[in-house]
C-alpha cells in the first residue's frame, strides 16, 4: 500500500526537457554534475558511436553492408548517459533494430559489431544475424530486435527473472515513439508494476517512426505519461544532454534497485539520418534537421563544456578523435577482410 502511494506520488510526471513545448515552470534544470573524467568519457563514448555509424553508412554505400542499416546518429547521449548509471556487464540492455550505439555503449567490441554488419564469420552472430540481431551475454546485451515493440515484453521477462532469482539487476528496455503504440507495451507496463519488476522503460522519442511524425500516430505525445494509469512514474528528459539523461537515469535506477518496480523515461531526442539507409527522409525539412544539429548536438554540447571549463584543449579533443577513428578504422578493416561464414554454419545453433 505504502509502495503504491509513493508510486502514485512519483507517478506525476516531471520534465527536464529543453526540447518540449511546455517544460514545467518549476522544474529546476535537472542536470547531473559531471566530473572532468566523466565529461571526457561521455565525449569519447558518444564520439565512438558517431564515427562508427558514419563508417557503417560508408560501408553500406560501398555495398559491403546489405539489407537494413539503421543509424543512431544524433541519439548518442541517451545510451551513453544511461550506461553511466548502471553496472557494465551486470545490468541488462535490450533494444530494437537501431542498436549499434547500444552495443558500443555496453562495451561490445566494435570489430565484432562491424563484422556482423558486413555478415562475416567474426561478427557477433557469425554473420547469421546482421545489423538488427546481435547479442552478448558477457555485456548483458539482449538484442537487437526487428519486431517493433517485442523488446518491451522481452525486457519485462528479463526483469521478471532477475527478481525471481533475487538478483539486484536492472533491465533497460529501450524502444521508440512508434513502438510505444504497440499493445504489448501496455501489457508489459501492467505486469511490471503489478509485480514490481526492476525494469526501466526508455522511450527514445526521436520524433518520427519511419516517415510518421509523432503527433500523427500518437494521441498522447507526452510519453512519460504513458504509464500513469498503472502508477508507473515517468519523466520527460532532454535526451540530447547527457547530463539530463544521467540525472534522470540515476533516479530511475535507484527506484528500481530499491524494489519499487518499473520506471519510464521519455528521452526527447532526434535522429539526424533517415530511418534506414534507404530512406531519403522527405517527410521533414532540412531546416528542422539542421536546427537540431546546430542547437542541440549531444557531442558538441560536451565539447563546448570541456573547452569552456578548460578541462580539455583542442589538441586533447583531436587526440580523442584520432583514437576513436583508429578504433573504427580497425573495425572496418576487420569487417572487410574477415571471411564470410562457412556454409556448414547453416545447420548450427538451431536447437540445444
Amino acid at each position, binding site marked *: 500500500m505504502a509502495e503504491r502511494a509513493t508510486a502514485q506520488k512519483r507517478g506525476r510526471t516531471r520534465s527536464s526537457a529543453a526540447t518540449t513545448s511546455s517544460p514545467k515552470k518549476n522544474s529546476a534544470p535537472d542536470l547531473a554534475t559531471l566530473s572532468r573524467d566523466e565529461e571526457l568519457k561521455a565525449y569519447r563514448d558518444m564520439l565512438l558511436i558517431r564515427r562508427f555509424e558514419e563508417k557503417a553508412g560508408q560501408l553500406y554505400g560501398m555495398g559491403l553492408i546489405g539489407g*537494413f542499416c539503421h543509424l543512431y546518429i544524433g541519439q548518442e547521449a541517451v545510451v551513453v548517459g544511461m550506461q553511466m548509471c548502471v553496472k557494465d556487464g551486470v545490468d541488462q540492455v535490450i533494444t530494437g533494430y537501431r542498436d549499434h550505439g547500444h552495443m558500443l555503449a555496453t562495451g561490445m567490441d566494435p570489430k565484432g559489431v562491424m563484422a556482423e554488419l558486413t*555478415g562475416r564469420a567474426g561478427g557477433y552472430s557469425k554473420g*547469421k*544475424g546482421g545489423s538488427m*540481431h546481435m547479442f552478448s551475454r558477457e555485456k548483458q546485451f539482449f538484442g537487437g530486435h526487428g*519486431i517493433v515493440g517485442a523488446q518491451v515484453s522481452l525486457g519485462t521477462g528479463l526483469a521478471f527473472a532477475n527478481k525471481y532469482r533475487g538478483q539486484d539487476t536492472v533491465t533497460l528496455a529501450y524502444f521508440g515513439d512508434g513502438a510505444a503504440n504497440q*499493445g504489448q507495451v501496455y501489457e508489459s507496463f501492467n505486469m511490471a508494476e503489478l509485480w514490481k519488476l526492476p525494469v526501466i522503460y526508455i522511450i527514445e522519442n526521436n520524433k518520427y517512426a*519511419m516517415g510518421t511524425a509523432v503527433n500523427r*500516430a500518437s494521441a498522447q505525445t507526452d510519453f512519460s505519461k504513458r504509464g500513469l494509469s498503472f502508477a508507473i512514474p515517468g519523466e520527460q528528459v532532454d535526451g540530447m544532454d547527457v547530463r539530463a539523461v544521467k540525472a534522470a537515469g540515476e533516479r530511475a535506477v535507484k527506484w528500481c534497485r530499491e524494489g519499487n518496480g518499473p520506471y519510464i523515461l521519455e528521452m526527447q531526442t532526434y535522429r539526424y539520418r533517415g530511418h534506414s539507409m534507404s530512406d531519403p527522409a522527405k517527410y521533414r525539412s532540412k531546416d528542422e534537421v539542421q536546427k537540431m544539429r546546430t542547437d542541440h548536438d549531444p557531442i558538441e554540447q560536451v565539447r563546448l563544456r570541456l573547452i569552456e571549463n578548460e578541462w580539455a584543449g583542442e589538441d586533447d579533443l583531436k587526440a580523442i578523435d584520432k583514437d576513436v577513428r583508429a578504433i573504427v578504422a580497425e573495425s572496418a578493416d576487420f569487417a572487410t577482410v574477415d571471411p564470410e561464414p562457412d556454409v556448414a554454419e*547453416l545447420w548450427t545453433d538451431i536447437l540445444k
Partner: protein
Amino acid sequence: MTSLRYAEALNRALREEMTRDPMVWLFGEDIATYGGVFKVTKDLLGEFGPGRVRDTPISEQTLTAMAVTAAMAGTRPVLEIMYADFLPLSIDALVNQAGVFDYIWGGQVSIPMVLRTQGGGGAGAGAQHSKSLDAFVAHIPGLKVVAPATPADAYGLLKAAIRDPNPVIVLEHKLLYNLRGEVPEDGGLIEIGRARTAREGRDVSIFATSRMVHLSLEAAEKLAAEGIEAEVIDLRSLRPLDVGAIVASVAKTHHAVVVNEGWRFCGYGAELSATIMEQAFDDLDAPVERVGAMDVAIPYSEPLEKTVLPDVEAIMAAVRRARR
C-alpha cells in the same frame, strides 16, 4: 495493354477500386504520407484524402481486428501489413475471428476485408524481415489467399480480392515490386482460385508460387536444353487451390515438382505434395519432389541466405530427380 511494374499494377488496382466504390479505404503503417515502404500506395493520399488513406500507429494486432469488424459493418478495408514476418501479430484476428465468424454465426455476416503484405527473402533483410509465411495463412479455413507473380495478376487479383465478400490475404513479394509486365487495359478481374499455365510442357509439371514461378520458368528454359520439357503452373491462388488444374497437368506429364519459398517442414509445398498424392496418384510415374527453404531462420549473410532459399539449381535438381 500497358507495361507496368508490379508495384504500379497494385497501385492502379487500388486507385480504380477506390474510385469505383467509396466504401473502399486503405490503412497501414506509412502508407499515406510516405506512400508505403514499397510505394504501392504512392499518391493515393493526395487523390483520396486522409479519410480514405490512413497512416496508422504501429499496432498490427488491433489493426487487423479492426479490419474484420469494419468490413463486417459495411466498409471495405484494405490493410497493409508491412512485412509478412509481422503476420503472427495479425493471426489471432485471422484465425479466431475473420475465418470463423461467417461459419459460427450461421452465415449472417460477410467480411470483405483485404490484408496485403509482402514476404520473401533475397534482400539481406535478416531473420525477422525475410520469411514466407504462406502456410500460416493458407492453413486457415474461411480465408482466401492469393500470391500474384506478375503485374497482370497483381492487378487482377487485388481487384478481385477487394470485391470479394470474404477475407482475402494478398501475399506480395519484395523482389517482385520492380518486375515489369503487360497489364490489360480492360480492368479485368482475375478469378480467385484459378491457376495459370505459365509454360506448357510434356515431361514434368512444376507447381510454383509467387517469385518461385520465375525461377521455375528459368529452370524450365535450361532444362529444355537437356531435352526435358517442363510445364510451369503458377498457382496464383493458394486457397482455394485449383486442384483441377493440378490434376490435369499431372495427367499430362506424370511427374510433379512443387516449389514454394517457405520452409519445407509443414510448409505450403507439403500441402501441394499431399494433394497431388491424394488426387493424382494413379497418374504419377514417380514420387512428388518438393523444393522449399531450408528449415532454418533466414540468415543475414548473403552466401548463407542464398543457400537457404530455393534457387534455379535446386528446381532443376528436383526435376531431374523426378524424372530419374
